[in-house]
């Protein structure tokens, strides 16, 4: 079995350079690649295009990279909860492309499935449709949206093995397996790294063929954005 293990986050992201296009998994702060984001902040690469559903909060997630002005362009579906993001957007320092969440997910899927484009009804008749090809199937209009083309996909899984197979936990799965399929180079950080053979092949969410580098992360904060509880 091919061994995909690297020593840690710094080694995993060592060849990411200024101007690269990155995909980062997660929904809000749930399932984000915390270790790789810290390493990217430390490496201080600039002019990045980041494809991620959200842009973190001011002091966590992609927000840490925004604070250092490492991000040139953000492609996301929802970017609230981030004052620094808002400041950079209004001042024109940051370029933002807002796209429907299902379109974002399916453009990742298309890249991983080797399909150049998808057709979706999301955004028909809105400003999202401007400049895009429209096709009519059975009386309904659909927008053609292209598969993403990313230099690196950076994802977080619960468990992984040395062959790069990944298993996700609960709703921290979200965009992670889709982005894992979509990067030219895919980096996976996992909470628990095990030897090949220890994960049941029937339980793998992302087959190792999609994963180029894997390491066991540490110090996961797993911050909760909206802690809500029920009264007993």
């Amino acid at each position, binding site marked *: 079995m091919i061994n995909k293990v690297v020593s840690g986050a710094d080694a995993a992201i060592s060849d990411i350079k200024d101007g690269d296009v990155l995909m980062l998994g997660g929904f809000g702060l749930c399932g984000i690649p915390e270790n790789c984001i810290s390493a990217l902040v430390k490496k201080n690469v600039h002019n990045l295009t980041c494809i991620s559903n959200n842009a973190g909060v001011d002091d966590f997630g992609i927000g840490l990279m925004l604070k250092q002005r490492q991000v040139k362009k953000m492609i996301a579906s929802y970017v609230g909860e981030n004052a620094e993001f808002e400041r950079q957007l209004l001042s024109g320092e940051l370029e933002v492309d807002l796209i429907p*969440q*299902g379109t974002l997910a399916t453009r990742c899927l298309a890249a991983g499935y080797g399909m150049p484009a998808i057709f979706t009804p999301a955004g028909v008749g809105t400003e999202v449709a401007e400049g895009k090809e429209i096709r009519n199937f059975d009386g309904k209009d659909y927008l053609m949206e292209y598969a993403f083309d990313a230099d690196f996909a950076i994802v977080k899984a619960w468990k992984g093995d040395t062959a790069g197979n990944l298993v996700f936990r609960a709703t921290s799965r979200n965009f992670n397996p*889709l982005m894992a399929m979509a990067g030219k180079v895919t980096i996976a950080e996992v909470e628990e790294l095990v030897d090949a053979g220890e994960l049941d092949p029937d339980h793998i969410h992302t087959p190792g063929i999609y994963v180029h580098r894997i390491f066991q992360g540490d110090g996961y904060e797993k911050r909760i954005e909206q802690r809500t509880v*029920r009264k007993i």
Partner: protein
Amino acid sequence: MPLSKEEIAQRIAKEIKDGYYVNLGIGIPTLVANYIPKGINIVLQSENGLLGMGPFPIEGSEDADLINAGKQTITTLPGSSIFDSAMSFGMIRAQKVDLTILGAMEVSENGDIANWKIPGKMVKGMGGAMDLVASAKNIIVAMQHVNKAGESKLLPTCTLPLTGVRCIKKVVTELAVMDILPEGGFKLVERAAGVSIEFIQQSTLGKLVVEGDVPEMQLN
């Protein structure tokens, strides 16, 4: 009396049928889950990748890996399932979800909806709203009939940037339940107890269609 937000949610809950898969948006729609009638079994879909969403966790048992589309900590129920975001929007696009309930800033008489962007204000993004409205077969909008200045939010055409076109079937506000007719127009189906047809007419800038007697809403 105009309905409270809770009462709007309570009225919408009566539209839910046994066996429905339902997606609830943020705001009033979330409250609908509190009023599901006894004996009605439904499954809530959260578009970040969960079917079978349960109530908020008991304090101390919050799980950072388990959240809803509003990023709130939640729980799963027996029979729930978890999947990635592409499958989540796949089941929405393929109309496997029976009912979508969401909020709106404006709805037009031909069923257009605007609920994601106000020009001049910081744009946060559409999230999953455009996917939901473009694909869902049955969408109910929960909204205020008029804004804080007393101006109608039910219009001939939306003034704000659109989220979707010709997609809304039913609107429930603090004043009324209305069906959007295929040929255009808000057909008044029910009115809030004690609210006159004239008052609803004054509060509706879009075309209001009134036929015969319009019964008062029953919440229970």
